[in-house]
């Protein structure tokens, strides 16, 4: 499997976290690949919903944005922007949401707004979009991210999308209807979150990766699950199905 790219590996691992019959709010790119891969393999009844208001899309090509017309033609339903966020997300009808960002901390808080200070940013990033809304309302948040030191930080410069804030106690006071962060899938390992403290915990290392490598790329002292697992290697079926989804390698670079 040495020819499987890091992106392909992360998509395959993410796809395994989706269950049949669930609803998932999908962004373009990597999350879209993960959802479509799961649908073609073990979760044929996965319902894909996009921020643009399209529900149950049946795309004829790889969508190039969340508003791609291929997500509309042949969809089950299309509603307005406010309706999408109100009926679906606030309605509590979405099981899984995918998020990404420039920074993430050990409680799963995400920054996609600014590097530096808000008023005079060093780098101005796109901002929340629907990310904070998704983080506040889905049952499980899944993050897919390369495991780089600049992305894993002690404290995010700006909290765009709530993870467990400063731990589960503080988070509970917000009374969000969502279930909070569930998994962080990186180029090195899979993290899940400690039930009691809400802290990110390594549950499985990808093939060939050591705990030391994870620690070296993470600025805080990494918590490790009592039973640390190994990510099962991608199967031939997973790899082939995934590559067929993006034959032009638009996202599988």
């Amino acid at each position, binding site marked *: 499997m040495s020819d499987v790219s890091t992106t392909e590996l992360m998509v395959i691992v993410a796809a395994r976290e989706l269950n049949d019959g669930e609803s998932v709010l999908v962004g*373009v*790119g990597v999350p879209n690949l993960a959802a479509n891969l799961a649908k073609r393999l073990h979760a044929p009844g996965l319902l894909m919903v996009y*921020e*643009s*208001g*399209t529900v149950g899309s049946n795309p004829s090509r790889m969508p*190039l*944005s*969340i*508003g*791609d*017309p291929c997500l*509309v*033609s*042949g969809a089950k339903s*299309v*509603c*307005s*922007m*406010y309706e999408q*966020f*109100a009926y679906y*997300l*606030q309605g509590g009808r979405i099981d899984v949401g995918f998020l990404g960002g420039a920074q993430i901390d050990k409680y799963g808080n995400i920054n996609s*707004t600014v590097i530096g200070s*808000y*008023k005079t*940013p*060093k*780098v*101005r*990033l*796109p*901002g*929340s*979009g*629907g*990310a*904070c*809304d998704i983080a*506040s*309302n889905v049952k499980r948040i899944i993050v897919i991210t390369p495991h780089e030191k600049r992305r894993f930080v002690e404290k995010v410069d*700006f*909290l*765009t*999308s*709530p993870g467990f*804030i400063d731990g589960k106690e503080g*988070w509970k006071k*917000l*009374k*969000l*209807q969502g279930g909070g962060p569930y998994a962080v899938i990186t180029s090195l390992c899979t993290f899940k979150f400690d039930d009691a403290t809400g802290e990110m915990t390594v549950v499985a290392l990808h093939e060939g990766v050591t705990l030391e490598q994870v620690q070296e790329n993470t600025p805080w002292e990494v918590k490790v699950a009592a039973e640390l697992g190994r990510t099962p290697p991608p199967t031939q079926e997973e790899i082939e199905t995934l590559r067929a989804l993006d034959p032009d390698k638009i996202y599988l670079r």
Partner: protein
Amino acid sequence: MNTGKTMSMKEAISKFVNDGDTVYLAGFTHMIPFAAGHEIIRQGRKGLVLARATPDIIYDQMIAAGCAKKLMFSYAGNPGVGSLRCFRRAHEKGVPAPLEVEEYTHFGLSGRLFAGATNMPFLPMRTNLGSSLPPENEMMKTVTDPYTGDEVSVVPPLKPDVAVVHVQRADANGNSHIWGIIGEQKDTAFAAKRVVISAEEIVEESVIRSDPNRTLVPDFIVDAVVHEPWCAHPSYVQGYYDRDNEFYVDWDKITKEHEATLKYLDEWVFGVEDRAQYMKKVPQSKIDSLTPKPAYSAPVNFGSV
């Protein structure tokens, strides 16, 4: 056919968009009225508050042209590509001029428009709590839920001075059929004080009346109707033309420097008089590649009693 409120884009922008206005060019990824943005640039409007959930390339162009004093938004990226460089240059470095921001989540900004469209006093929503955003934006407040005692995030109504809403088909008075991703089209039209409809096709009123459930914008809230085919390019119109994704990717290169950006504006905005001239510059092969195959909706019977 009666001419109703029809006029050219030039006339509509001249009549209804003033310096200093809060402007909302509608369209969540879909039917973004680029032709209206270009005409605003050509007419040299200044000091605008540009409001859009996704500023997209059109506001990047208007910022580079110096039309804006403030951006109200929820996602300032080039969708599927990366940054909006002109926005960043203005906000980070003050080029060509400093740019304030007023920022929401998607739910927050679409909620402000919904509240504006329906004239709610304020709108409660399940989001924003725990985020760093509310302390940076005094328009976001909280209220105590009288049923549970919980703290609830609220936003106020947004009522832009003027909106441009592009649609697939409208009659001469502005009754508009919209399909595909309907985004914030309806809420923008109802929220704004002045409304310009631009349409791919102007149709007889009887076409509109054959399917009143498809009429998201009724004529009596509309001030002007502009017949503007290909208004949305490089954005798209469901059933009419596809998104010009290549241009979205190119924009990232064009805008690496402010000067190169101005050169683009010189050629494609100031160098043409209107959308018809702009489209003459687009190669026919591009137009062909963006034209979809037809796929019609199954008709429905409204009956006549």
